[in-house]
């Protein structure tokens, strides 16, 4: 075992011991003595590193002397500072201050950073000295640390350094200045903060520092900062406009909101929507009139922005404006307005829209109906139903669609009657869609209303009736489908067979469908009817919980002469794979001879032969599995076959 591995294992053990100690609440003083001993020993760096982390939790000032030397160790300095940054008391501060006098380069930067984190006011003089260090990284660290500590002495030094420090440290000096300004704000000395912010925003510092100072200068002035804020919003500089938008969301006060709303009219068109968005984020009631006004007229992009904002800020009072926008003829505006109307919060919005509907005409009526559907306004249903025969095609279409969303069993009758009066295929299609939706909700209550459709001499009506009945299921519905198959209309017959063939998937409890399908496999008027019936019947057999496994296999065996194509073979394999027996295994072996379905059959064989089944001998299972292991082209199936064989 090499030294590194020994150290690693030792480290793991140390972690385990310390973690356990934490759990049981071992005496902290004892624990600390053990940890200090590790640091003072010749232990490997790895051990000392983790020890530092433990001292960060359990160490006291007593541990500081043993941590101090590590500050000069390139490998362990950061570990030592993990402890020194959090150990309470002046000893750690003193250690870091002392290190500031002896270290250089990165290690010195680290010590200064930790002083900043600890906000050691006693270190200010030392840090001010370091502010003039030739190493820009050291000077920068000192500037930021002074900012974290704050106070008059730090602020004064940073202000002076703002013009005197080398360019490489100027950004950090400004950062420290901004931090100092925040210190003054926290001490409720905004004038001092403003003095710092103003100096920084006018200094030769990186643009981002100036932006931070601008923001601070505005916020520290409160309402007095409105002018400076407006100046940013009017600026051609992207960064200043951006900080203006950000600060416009932060600066509190109704006078600020009013000033920003007034500014909305003065800004260039491309800036207005962005300011409107900022206004909307202010959570101030005074914003709503400005947004509503913007929604009512002016540049289209501003109107659309306002309309979208009303989703959040709008209420029932916005309905007239939004309805007007939704119906004025501009597609983009109309879409935005309707979207907002569909999402405005409040029951009173529903009531308002429902109340407008009876007297509304044309496009407005259409939009109101669409909204009633989108918002699921049940109170609007009578007015909507009265529109399903409206002369206006737009109104009529919207009403039919809305009935699909809101309708109850009574509307099955309404839609059925409407269907009988409607000739166009497109309109019939939309009525059928609504009918199916309402039927799905109404269930068996729909059947009496639907049966008349199945008596219609119009093939398409008859077929719509069958589709709707297939949504309901049950004996009456099935009877109508069977009657259609026995009828004379070939188009209806074809569709009825298709419906019957999927019946077992939708209504497995309607077992009568099985007999009808079985008969059709032999007596179907067309080959396509027989094929569909065969597929439906196999699905019926598979899903029929009243049949035993042996009965299921027997049903498949009976139909075996008709099962010739891969599609039906796959369905048969699905039935057999779930019905383990000697016969199903034999039948699957036969089906495996068709290369098109061989792998499906092999997989089913492994499933059956891999488990003990009454009536299935060990030899039969082994023979089947060997066959699969030999012939299957699927590695997974082969592997499963071999594994199953090995267990027999």
């Amino acid at each position, binding site marked *: 075992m090499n030294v*590194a*591995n020994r150290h*690693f294992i030792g*480290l*793991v053990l140390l*972690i385990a011991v310390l*973690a356990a100690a*934490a*759990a049981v609440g071992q005496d902290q003083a004892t624990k600390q003595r053990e940890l200090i001993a590790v640091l003072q020993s010749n232990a490997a*760096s*790895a051990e000392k*590193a*983790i020890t530092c*982390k*433990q001292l*960060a*939790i*359990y160490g006291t000032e007593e541990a500081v002397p043993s941590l101090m030397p590590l500050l000069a160790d*390139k490998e362990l*300095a*950061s*570990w030592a500072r*993990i402890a*020194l*940054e*959090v150990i*309470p008391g002046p000893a750690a501060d003193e250690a870091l201050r002392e290190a500031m006098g002896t270290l250089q380069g*990165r*290690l010195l*930067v*680290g010590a200064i*950073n930790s002083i*900043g*984190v600890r906000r050691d006011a006693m270190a200010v003089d030392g840090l001010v000295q370091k502010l003039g260090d030739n190493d820009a990284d050291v000077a920068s*660290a000192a500037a930021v640390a002074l900012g974290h500590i704050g106070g008059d002495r730090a602020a004064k030094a940073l202000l002076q350094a703002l013009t005197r420090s080398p360019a490489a440290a100027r950004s950090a000096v400004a*950062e420290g200045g901004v931090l100092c300004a*925040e210190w003054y704000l926290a001490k409720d000395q905004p004038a001092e903060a403003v003095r710092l912010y103003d100096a920084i925003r006018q200094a030769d510092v*990186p*643009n*981002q520092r100036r*932006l*931070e100072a601008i*923001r*601070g200068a505005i916020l520290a002035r409160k309402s007095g900062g409105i002018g400076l804020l407006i100046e940013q919003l009017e600026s051609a500089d992207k*960064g200043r406009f951006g900080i203006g*938008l950000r600060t416009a969301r932060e600066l509190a006060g109704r006078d600020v909101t009013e000033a920003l709303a007034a500014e909305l009219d003065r800004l260039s068109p491309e800036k207005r*929507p*962005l300011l409107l*968005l*900022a206004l909307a*984020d202010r959570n101030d009631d005074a914003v709503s009139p400005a947004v509503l006004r913007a929604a009512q007229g002016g540049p*289209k*992009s501003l109107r*659309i*922005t306002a309309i*979208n904002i009303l*989703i*959040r800020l709008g209420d029932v009072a916005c309905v007239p404006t939004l309805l007007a926008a939704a119906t004025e003829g501009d597609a*983009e505006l109309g879409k935005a307005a309707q979207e907002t109307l569909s999402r405005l919060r409040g029951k009173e919005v529903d009531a308002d829209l429902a109340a407008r509907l009876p007297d509304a005409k044309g496009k407005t009526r259409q939009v109101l109906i669409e909204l009633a559907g989108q918002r*699921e306004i049940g109170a609007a249903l009578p007015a909507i139903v009265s529109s399903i025969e409206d002369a206006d095609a737009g109104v009529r279409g919207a009403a039919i669609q809305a009935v699909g969303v809101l309708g109850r069993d009574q509307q099955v009758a309404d839609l059925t009657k409407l269907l009988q009066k409607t000739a166009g295929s497109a309109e019939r299609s939309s009525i059928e869609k609504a009918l199916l939706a309402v039927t799905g909700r109404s269930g068996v209550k729909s059947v009496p209303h639907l049966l008349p459709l199945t008596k219609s001499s119009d093939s398409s009506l008859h077929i719509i009736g069958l589709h709707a009945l297939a949504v309901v299921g049950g004996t009456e519905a099935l009877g109508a489908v069977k009657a259609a198959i026995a009828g004379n209309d070939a188009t209806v017959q074809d569709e009825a067979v298709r419906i019957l063939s999927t019946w077992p998937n939708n209504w497995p409890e309607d077992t009568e469908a099985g007999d009808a399908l079985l008969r059709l496999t032999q007596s179907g008027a067309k080959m396509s009817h027989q094929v569909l019936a065969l597929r439906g019947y196999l699905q019926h057999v598979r899903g029929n919980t009243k049949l035993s496994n042996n009965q299921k296999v027997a049903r498949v065996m009976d139909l075996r002469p008709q099962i010739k194509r891969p599609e039906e073979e796959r369905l048969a394999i699905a039935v057999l794979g779930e019905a383990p027996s000697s016969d199903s295994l034999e039948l699957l072996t036969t089906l495996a001879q068709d290369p098109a379905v061989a792998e499906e059959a092999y997989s089913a064989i492994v499933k059956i032969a891999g488990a003990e089944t009454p009536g299935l001998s060990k030899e039969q299972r082994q023979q089947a599995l060997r066959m699969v292991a030999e012939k299957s082209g699927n590695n997974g199936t082969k592997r499963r076959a071999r594994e199953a064989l090995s267990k027999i």
Partner: protein
Amino acid sequence: MKSVTTKTRNNLPEGTIRPGRRQFLKTAMKAGALLALPQVIPSSALGKAGAVAPSERITLGAIGIGGRGSYVLGCFLHEEDLQCIAVCDVRGDRRKRAKDMADARYGNHDCTAYIDMRELLARDDIDALLIATGPNWHATASIMAAKAGKDVYCEKPCTKNIAQSLALADVFRRTGRVFQAGTQRRSLPNFAYAVELAHSGRLGQLVTLHAHPGGLGTSVSGWLPAEPEPPRDQVDWDAYLGPAAWRPYNRKLLDGFNFEKGGGMVGGGCLEWGSHCVDLCQWANQSDDTAPVEYEPVNGQLHARYANGVKLVMRNDGWLPLGSCPVRYEGTTGWVETGDDAEFGASSPDLLTRRGAKIPGYPADFHVRDFLDCVKSRAQTRANADAACWAHIACHAANVALFLNRKVRFDPQKCEFIGDEQANRLRSEALREPWRI
């Protein structure tokens, strides 16, 4: 109470997108699939309607582009109003792959590749950054980027401890930069809808929130045996370590997340999925500016309590099969549960009538779009620095309770544990020199 569960599917690894899915997402975005979401910024307001001139595009730099980073960068590259002009990774193979991705997108060789992120940050022609390094770097790099005047989309977990979480929020507020945490579930309609149910009172008064933490184990960081350090152009080990305490090179530590598990004072724990699921519970409880006040390990779970009395349970087991990262919100009159399959379980089907579009597979596209919109509008993103700060604080405080294996109480106003010095010492960890936040 009769409950309902919608259909389920198998989980996918984070970031998986099926063939043809990109087109579906684009269509869904145009069709307003995110109707349940609160913020709506019209494209016309942001100048991205129609073709976008190169001078109007947001310029992006991407830092730390491994597996997850490549996926999210792909989401960025699909946006027409963006151009990725720089990438940075301490690993040579990843650096080249990221540059190739960007160059292939634009049909040129203009994307510049960097080893040292400070060189990338110094460019004043970059507006925004994708930061997808290992978690060890997330907060430090994000803060450095904000100070350099960049907006940031940062992968989760975004911070290593409570102090970093607070610093992140402070710096982004101070700099006025835009931040989006990579908690993309905030931009997905099923999670937003569940939150809307909680906010609207349709679940009654909230009682208990459940979050899948994706693990609850914690540990202190370690140090693996030294191996020969590769050349800098293959792996810049010093840059990789970044703000983490020094340790020798070992290739096993190059897995960013495993490094984090051993890279922090309290590694692992509930930050993996907690940064998503706890965040979603924070959102549901309207706690984007606070965190629970009590945390207690209980029988393999972590139980927390908000000041408003709502309980937060972090548990790994007992979820409906709704995909990864599930959350469950329970109120006095109903409950809802959802996960990455974008399906729901609920106490009543009536709760789900306006559930909106189903977008499974937790894509980041919507979240990236939200970020880019906010870069233009300067609005707060859905997972802004304040929200991310408090969601991460909740996770870190839970980790502290798990690490100490006892109940801790937390004061969100003072951001300190009450009468618990050991816990308070775990709120922060010194950064390796020369890094600072």
